[in-house]
């Protein structure tokens, strides 16, 4: 009997160790992701220096400024491609976080939320460095998903387009990176 208890204790310790290792790995991936985003924001901020302030001319030129900024960013990162920020490991981590957010009763609520916000049906949109066309509605992201993802600042946000998760720059109105099939399909 004593041997059995000892075995159970060892097993319990091993499982706790594995869980802790997963937490540590997840935290490391989140930190890596936020570091990559910070590098992007640093680049964008350096490119904003030459542009007029957003509120110049009563803001009438705000969207013109947005397009000018997007052009400068495209020039500064011409080879940008899918996976630069969402590396395969980070993308896998995000898919897991979204699955966790959509467990149980959350799934139906989140799907209805996505549906009610009029998601654009335009898969051709999702090129890295591309801008969201003005003619299409801006997709939103259910708050419960946002609660489960690493918190972003500096006018960079997450958007759900179809089943993809898009990393989006609000200031430049452009797509920074994409995870395809990030949102699990309906069963």
């Amino acid at each position, binding site marked *: 009997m004593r041997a059995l208890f000892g075995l159970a204790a060892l097993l319990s310790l091993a499982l706790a160790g594995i869980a802790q290792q997963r937490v540590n790995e997840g935290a490391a991936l989140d930190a890596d992701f936020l570091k990559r985003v910070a590098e992007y924001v640093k680049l964008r901020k350096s490119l904003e220096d030459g542009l007029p302030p957003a*509120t110049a001319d009563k*803001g009438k030129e*705000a*969207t013109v400024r947005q397009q000018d900024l997007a052009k400068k960013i495209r020039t500064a990162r011409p080879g940008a491609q899918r996976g630069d920020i969402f590396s395969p490991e980070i993308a896998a981590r995000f898919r897991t976080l979204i699955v966790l957010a959509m467990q149980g009763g959350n799934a139906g609520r989140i799907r209805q*939320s996505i549906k009610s916000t009029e998601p654009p049906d335009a898969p051709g949109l999702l090129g890295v460095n591309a801008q969201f066309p*003005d003619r299409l509605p801006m997709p*939103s992201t259910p708050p419960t998903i*946002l609660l489960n993802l690493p*918190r972003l600042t500096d006018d960079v946000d997450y958007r759900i387009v179809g089943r993809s998760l898009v990393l989006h720059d609000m*200031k430049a109105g452009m797509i920074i990176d994409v995870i395809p099939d990030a949102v699990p399909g309906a069963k």
Partner: protein
Amino acid sequence: MKSLCSLTLAAVWVIAWPLGAVHGQSAPGFAFPLQADSVRFAIIGDSGTGDAPQYAVAAQMLKQRATLPFTFVLMMGDNIYGGHKPADLKKKFADPYQQLMASQVTFYASLGNHDNPAEVSYQPFNMGGKRYYNFRKGNTEFFALDSNYMDPTQLDWLEKQLSASTAAWKICYYHHPIYSDARFHGPDPDLRQRLEPLFQKYGVDVVFSGHEHVYERIQPQHNIYYFVLGNSGELRPHDLKRSPNIVKGFDTDQCFAMFEIAGNNMYFEAISRVGEIVDSAVLPKPEQKK
């Protein structure tokens, strides 16, 4: 939809007509009190088409200022549809509301799903470069939210601002409705899951939203008044379902609404593009349950 209509209705009447019907006049005895220290404002939603109906609603707003000289306008989002070049901003906002702005009426916008986030820097929208912000007028505090992106940072901000507010009336407005009986989109239940507990905890009295291209006054939910007004430019005719959750619905023409908050009562009229009054009432400040 749960309906907890435990409001104090003493000395207050509410008139509700069948869905879509237009009687063209206010409820019997209705009149704005035009109290000296009252808060007077209008609301519009989904306005920015640049088409003739938007201009007609704007002209009607100007005309109705003779009845209630409102001093500011809340915008429920979709302020600018389609292109966002300077010519678009002129055609879809500056031109239709030119005379209102010349009369010192100010606009306070929130963002819809058709808006470009760069609109936060468009000075006539008075957003101060922010996606969400608050301001106070008299005994009322207004909280403009960005329902396109209700991230934890915004939720934290909202909780902090609501908890610190000393205003008698607290009004939140944003684009996507958390209650609606329109067919096209329907309500956003995940947004409701996150916002409604804050509204209840901190005593929000009134919530305005747009997105659905109709007018709806919802039965009070947890002692909070909900209005949907997303037909000040766009219109989705006959989109409302018949529902016991709707006190009053209107889906056959464009409209706007104007409000006066005087002491513990909120007076309002919803008015169509051609000047017909489609809803009106005096609503008492809800008794909040802590």
